[in-house]
């Protein structure tokens, strides 16, 4: 299925692009609320992705060769802004890993075969991906991971355990980071592997969170056999591949979330008549505006070459702003109000916000990374 191709897209103005996006979203955004977890959330996410793809709105910056639109990142931002404005389903859903981690990683490091096979499936809403990086003893210290893949012929035999794998229970594929050189340590000797979740030997145990839904899971690997051809970026070169993924996550992947955060702040401003909280809300309003300005800057810079660890700063700024917004919301509405919890996966859930400074590397580790890589401060022990 090819996306509908508007003839005017080639040379339409930014304003026209926006207007067209707004119209499409007005007519197509689902009115029913997204299910929070389980098979229903899979079906919902895939259907919504399929509709976007059919409308020509999926993979806006992805390569044309694999069905993407190869548009400038500012168009992508404009789309996200209209997307958030239209209260479209949160991008932080079951499609997130595919669209924002795995897809971009394949674009950057995948072989032609890998790209040709997987990118269209992701874009068209055929598959769900999940992440397999963290381990019980390697939370913030990713380089210490121990799940191992032994090369046997043209296969890897994988044994070990992953944790905090979001949507693993409903995923088709996993981006799996494992130790493939048994003699290696730290960030050497790892490989980034495409793991089909239906491979024999995989057991998934969902983890309920303090926010309620079981979005995360533990994944156990018992002699799971995966072809060597599923390695992305080269055997024992997984750290570099993984860093590419993380830099995407930390950069623009959360753009739509960032923008919907601005919107959330405006809702709170409208709902709040408390003077002291009103001052706090003005700080949040300004900070959300700054976050948008930072994201634009990052996106613009990322078009003219690889960007550094500044993405980590934006990610952390977003995480802490999201927590401050969630906290003010509960101060305004109280614990009994539906405006506070389970607000349809839009990232506004007060409890969910606690994960923002934990998932994808704790805020403390992010601060170390920024201090060392952006500011050039010396490594010390942590």
């Amino acid at each position, binding site marked *: 299925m090819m996306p509908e191709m508007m003839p005017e897209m080639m040379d339409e103005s930014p304003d026209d692009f926006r207007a067209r996006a707004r119209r499409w979203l007005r007519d197509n955004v689902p009115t029913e609320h997204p299910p929070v977890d389980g098979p229903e959330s899979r079906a919902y996410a895939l259907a919504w992705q399929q509709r976007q793809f059919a409308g020509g709105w999926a993979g806006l910056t992805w390569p044309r060769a694999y069905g993407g639109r190869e548009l400038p990142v500012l168009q992508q931002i404009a789309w996200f802004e209209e997307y958030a404005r239209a209260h479209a389903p949160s991008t932080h859903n079951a499609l997130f890993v595919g669209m924002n981690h795995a897809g971009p990683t394949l674009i950057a490091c995948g072989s032609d075969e890998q790209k040709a096979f997987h990118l269209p499936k992701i874009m068209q809403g055929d598959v769900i991906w999940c992440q397999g990086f*963290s381990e019980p*003893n*390697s*939370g*913030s*210290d990713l380089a*210490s991971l121990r799940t191992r893949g032994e090369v046997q012929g043209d296969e890897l035999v994988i044994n070990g355990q992953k*944790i*905090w794998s979001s949507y693993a229970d409903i995923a088709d594929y996993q981006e799996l980071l494992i130790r493939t050189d048994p003699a290696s340590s730290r960030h050497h000797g790892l490989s980034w592997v495409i793991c089909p979740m239906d491979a024999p030997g995989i057991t998934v145990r969902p*983890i*309920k*969170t*303090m*926010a*309620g839904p079981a979005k*995360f899971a533990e994944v156990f690997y018992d002699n799971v056999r995966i072809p060597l051809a599923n390695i992305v970026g080269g055997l024992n070169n997984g750290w570099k591949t993984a860093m590419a993924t993380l830099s995407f996550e930390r950069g623009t992947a959360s753009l739509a979330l960032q923008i919907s955060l601005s919107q959330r702040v405006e809702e709170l401003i409208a709902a709040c008549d*408390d003077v*002291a909280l009103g001052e706090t809300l003005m700080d949040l309003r300004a900070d959300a505006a700054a976050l948008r300005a930072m994201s634009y800057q990052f996106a613009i810079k990322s078009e003219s070459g690889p960007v550094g660890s500044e993405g980590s700063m934006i990610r952390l700024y977003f995480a802490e702003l999201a927590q401050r917004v969630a906290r003010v919301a*509960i*101060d305004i509405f*109280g*614990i*009994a109000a539906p405006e506070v*919890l*389970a607000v349809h996966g839009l990232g506004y859930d007060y*409890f969910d916000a*606690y*994960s923002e*400074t*934990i*998932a994808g590397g*704790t*805020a*403390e580790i992010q*601060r170390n990374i920024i201090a060392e890589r952006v500011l050039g401060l010396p490594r010390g*022990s*942590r």
Partner: protein
Amino acid sequence: MTMFHASTEQLELIDSFTRPLEELFAPARLHKSESDYGQWVTGAEFGWFGISLPEAAGGIGLGMVEEALLFEKFGRHLVTPGFMAASLAAKTAYLCGDAALAQQILNGELPVAMARQGAPGAGVTLVDAASAKLCLVLSPQGTALFHADAVVERQPLDAAQWSIPLQSARLAGNAAAHAATQKIGADVNLLLAAQLTGIAAATLDMAVSYSLLRQQFGAPIGSFQAIKHYCTDMAMQVQAAKDMLSFGAVAVAEARDDHRFQAASALVVATRAAFFNTAKNIQIHGGMGFSAECDAHLYLKRAHVLDTLAGGLKASRAALRRETSIFGKDAA
């Protein structure tokens, strides 16, 4: 001799008095059942509802210092706010001269739930009320004890979200209180502060233990400065909340001029301590702290419930504003 803080004897007495908590009220119980009403009779039998009422009235005959220490332990164990409701209800009935009602509450015959009303006529938030026969309503107007039936139009909120049954409801228009008083505002503040202090202390302990245990980068995370400083900040919150609670409880027990000021301060300090520590405890526990299996979120959620019963930090600050510090300008 003038007392300012709980004595070693008082601390030891309450330690022994609350020994059953370890077994009966392990916080992890809340992963399975959100209500403590199964333990209601146990609470009554231990005398926990009447610690500061005279023995002649069926109480234990101790004072507010002991009661504050008891409820600090209750906070640590996330004991239902119903126990606080029972204690305050018995006291309200006793002060209003209804000794029989007080006795029934102390016996455990009439389980009590607690509710908060923001303003006269406004709705109430009702906590853990399924089995309650009475409802103690806190409001800016004081403490009022109603028959449970007086709380109507109950809309359950998802119990799993807050790890305790919560309802939004309304006081029936024609409801008459069995008993009501404006005299125990300081007691109310102390018991809330005590439980919040217990939560702050328990989460500090959890955080320190986990920091010693959890290894990352080849060392316990407690050896990293960021975690150390979080723990220190938590410890300072606990120290402030505990000493303020103890100081406030003695002021109330001795009926000092400044007792309402001290009790209101205790609530403001303890509320902030509980919110700070429960959040930092989750962060220190990392992904584990965010999982439902970990106890960390239970403390955070209970802090919110207790803060709601207090009317919110804003209301607690407003209550403090109405008091005069002994160091106020006019004090000299």
